[in-house]
């Protein structure tokens, strides 16, 4: 008969552990989770995201990169890339989509302001994933830039398909 007793000690222990875990996770999620947005999504709900740290993704417009060594300010434009994977497929894949985003003057562009010298992978048609805040005057102030360059070695290889794995990226503060 003893086996049928409800293991109260066990239940209480589990509840306490679960409560502690939620106590750790929930506030951390509230402060640590960020929206991950495309530029159009960010700008369409400007007020909602204005006060928050968000992460945005876009295509780097190479000729817009400027760095002032004296003030140590880095500025560049990011062009909107579609959020929907089907749209990206329809545009001919991720790399083609980045290319289209940079060359199409109709795309929404966002000025990104950061500090420090341009990171090594910051170049035309790279995908930038930028963490920061949207300022009141419309520029995006970046704390962190992560870059991915899927197109980096394509031109040099004898094939066009993008099925290999050399999309390394660098991270900067």
């Amino acid at each position, binding site marked *: 008969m003893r086996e049928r007793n409800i293991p109260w000690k066990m239940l209480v222990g589990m509840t306490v552990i679960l409560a502690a875990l939620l106590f750790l996770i929930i506030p*951390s*999620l509230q*402060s*640590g989770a960020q929206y991950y*947005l495309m530029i159009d999504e960010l700008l369409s709900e400007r007020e909602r995201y204005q006060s928050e740290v968000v992460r945005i993704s876009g295509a780097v417009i190479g000729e817009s990169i400027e760095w002032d060594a*004296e003030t140590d300010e880095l500025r560049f434009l990011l062009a909107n890339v579609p959020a929907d994977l089907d749209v990206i497929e329809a545009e001919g894949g991720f790399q083609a989509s980045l290319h289209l985003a940079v060359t199409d003057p109709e795309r929404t562009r966002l000025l990104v302001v950061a500090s420090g010298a341009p990171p090594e992978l910051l*170049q035309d048609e790279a995908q930038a994933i930028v963490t920061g805040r949207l300022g009141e005057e419309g520029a995006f102030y970046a704390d962190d830039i992560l870059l991915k360059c899927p197109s980096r070695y394509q031109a040099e290889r*004898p094939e066009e398909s993008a099925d290999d794995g050399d999309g390394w990226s660098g*991270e*900067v503060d």
Partner: protein
Amino acid sequence: MITHTALAGLMLALVFLGYAIAAILLRRGDQRWMESARRAVQAASMLTSLALAFFLYLLVHQRVEYAAVYRVIRSGMSLAARVSALWGGQTGSLLLWTWLLGMVAFVAAHKAKKSDPLYRPWLLLFTLLPFASYLVLVIFFDNPFARWWLFSDGGTTAAVFSPSGAVALPRPDDGAGLNPLLRHPAMVIHPPLLYLGFISFTLPFAEAMAALMSGEATRDVMNSIRRGTLVAWFFLTLGLTLGSRWAYDVLGWGGYWGWDPVEIAGLLPWLTSSAVLHLMMRGTRHKGRTRLVLGGTLLTFCLVILGSFLTRSGLLTSVHAFAESTLSPALLAIFIASVAGSFGIWLRGRAAPRQSRGQTIVSFWGVVLDGSALVLILLLIVCLVGLAVPVGSEWLMDQAMIVGPAYYRQATGPLWLLLLALVAPTPLYPHSMRRGSQSLRSLVVATSLSVLVSAAVNGLLPLNLLETALLFMSVLYFLLLTEQILRRGKDCSGRRSDRSLRPHTARFAGIVLLHLGVFLFAWGVLGMERQQTIQGALAAGGHLEVGEYTVRLDEVVRNVPDEQRTLVVATVSLYEQAPDAVVRLARVFPALEQDLVYDQVRAIPGVYSRIDKDLYVLFTGWNPEIDVPASLRVMMNPLANFLWIGGLAMASGALVMMIPDVFERRSDQDEASNEAGQ
């Protein structure tokens, strides 16, 4: 010729594995069939080795007409670089991974020779299933021997055999070459060590599965699982340490751990295997405990497979990620199969140890060891939640969310601290903590002394709360260790029948060293929290100040070491402002390396390293046309070296722990004969 031999070898290996699987499933009762299956597995591993050797031959001889070679090789690479290009690209690293699985299967087949006939077929099956799955990926999804083919319309493709209507593309003049970021000494050994760590978990996994299938969770099997887990833990710890060292040197941000999803994927099996090792310290005679240990072992393996999927899935944005690849659906399938198989067998399997004696008693060490395992599992849950947020939020809210380092720092911080508190009494482990025992008295005295010491130090130095807490625990650990050494193992209270854990054994020394490494690492982490950064543009002769240090730019020289790159090297002098004088500490040479082939600029830091702090100088930009042509970023990283020393101490501790296994077996036998004699 090479291609055909290697391909035939790989195909034959797959056929052998298929044969072995069929033999195990259909004829496992017959020892002759099992012997034959065992040999088939060993033959398959040998054939995979052959394919690996051929692929290495292609890399070393720069045969860029092969697509996988083309992507990572270019002329002018040293022999070491060409060999390490094996794991620089996706194709080669998949082959390496599969080959290591083959080696594990080989070892398992060797072990199976001597094991129980009921247990043997399952041990074989659960090492060869992962091996065969990845071999399928190598052959059919990402073949290392694929070449370039040209279609009549001008399109090209990489394939093993000539597609219809295509002709072989002439051999390209040169390959694309390894990404410059990967050319670092740590990169030569960090990935293989990590792979070795990950893959080594396959053996304990297969043993655990076999134990569940056969019901043979004997002491030998459990000991073997413990040894296997420890070996894998050793390689994983070493691999993670070297990886963080690579990040520190190469990524040019002066950090060592960024809570990047792929880093976390590497941490997950480390957490679960550490938990398993702690659970096993209390013996595995109790049935529930045996099941828990086996479950943890299976979970560790599943997390390894999860990591191999996440790295290539494109689901996560990461420094380490290979781009989204055609492999990801197949890898996801392998992951789902591992989880479903492990969990199903764990739930239904019989794992009653033969003698189910002993019961769990609430004791001091019980709380410490099981508590450590629990905290490690809570850390795992926190990390899994973090990894799940991007996928889950998209699903549940149709809104992509991401968690950054802030989440992990906040949520794991208290847990790491709790873990350290549980580590602190380790040096007393061989002793009983019964009421009134000398050990309990030692603990009380040492705790009081540690409180006094840390309070006093806190008065002298501006320590924050965390640092004070860590200081208290470190002093406690140190005092207990000192007392332990002075006592030289007296007063063991006759507690343990397990002689390998007497205070003078190598195994115990290993445990103490390992946990000392934990404290050193923790100091490294807290030291790096006090990192100071300063950035500025300078002309020659200009200087920056960080803390009590002055950083002076002496000169900048541009040179061209070879056709493929240019180097702009800054000469930077570091001075320390002592109270009465300014002392020159060192000169460092941070550089900007421009890779002409990749058109990529890389900052190579100049690091002045001392035991108490690193001065980390990055040359971030150079424009000779303006007045202040060079921009430098200087970081002062207190206690950075403690990170690597701590990591190495942890790994060495595990290594030392492995030594006494010889004695342990002997003492087990002594014990058995004593028991028999009584």
